[in-house]
């Protein structure tokens, strides 16, 4: 069996190159919040609700959330110390105010990033974007909570939060 290395290398190169392009195109479209790309974060923070994109909150909020997982919005979401620090690092490195995440500035409007809320749903910009939604809509059975983004934003897990 002699598999030539060249076609394989070419294929890999094409795959890498085109996915890099795709990523850029998505990031350019304004309301793109890159989905959580870290497996541990996806697993541990995506079982009770969607794993919220790191770019939806500033680093200070993630730090606060991650240092109080025993009392997490009324739930016990605690983890072992190694997992906690791994996830904290991922979220802070990809937070709204981390270097190189310019496309997420919009949600940070009016937010003091050093003393930000712990909820995405308490960001001033989130509140104004959702002001026109009727109480009936919020009570729809499959919505259950404001924090259930995917009930209305069907492409939320792909990073898109546009009109439903």
């Amino acid at each position, binding site marked *: 069996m002699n598999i030539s290395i060249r076609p394989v290398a070419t294929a890999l190169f094409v795959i890498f190159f085109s996915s890099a392009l795709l990523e850029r195109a998505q990031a350019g479209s304004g309301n793109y919040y890159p989905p959580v790309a870290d497996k541990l974060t996806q697993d541990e923070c995506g079982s009770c609700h969607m794993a919220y994109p790191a770019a939806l909150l500033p680093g200070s909020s993630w730090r606060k959330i991650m240092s109080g997982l025993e009392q997490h919005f009324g739930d*016990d979401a605690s983890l072992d110390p190694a997992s906690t620090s791994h996830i904290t690092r991922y979220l802070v490195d990809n937070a709204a105010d981390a270097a190189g995440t310019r496309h997420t500035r919009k949600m940070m409007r009016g937010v003091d990033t050093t003393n930000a809320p712990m909820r995405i749903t308490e960001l001033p910009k989130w509140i104004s974007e959702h002001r026109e939604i009727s109480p009936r809509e919020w009570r729809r059975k499959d919505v259950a909570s404001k924090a259930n983004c995917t009930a209305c934003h069907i492409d939320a897990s792909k990073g898109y939060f546009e009109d439903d």
Partner: protein
Amino acid sequence: MNSVFRSDSVALPHHPATLNDASIQPWQPKNGTPDKDSLVKALSRIFIVISGAIIASAVQAGPREELLDRYAREAKASEAAFSAFSSRSGEALHIARHATGKPDTPSCTACHGDDPRRPGQTKTGKSIDPMAVSVSQSRYTDAAKVEKWFRRNCTEVLGRACTPREKGDWLTYMISQ
């Protein structure tokens, strides 16, 4: 050919035709010299057989059984009367409305739903895959995950940790579903 079903053919260890069948001798060189292709084929067949055996043995002493063994040992250590887990008690624990935990989650079914073969839903509205092993085959194969959720959910529903017997009963119930 109906001879296969005759009782006398059962006594024959090999059907004569099988012995002459070239297809079960893949490494037999077809034109005198050993050719690379058939060697690779033979080796990959050996590989498949070996890995099949490994998988089969892993299934026999699977992680679910190991977990049940562990809970049984712990149950025996803490209560002398313990003999075996009961799927009925597991079901009772699952559906009972306990008054000792959080008011909005009085029972396991608050999130996991009334039918273990159907999906449940968290308080935040996210769907939870069914808990019954017959429909969610990969469940309870990661001991750390199982322990983590018993810890969280028993506190949530019962206001305390579950005992080894409760965990074993509940697991036995879900495995039977």
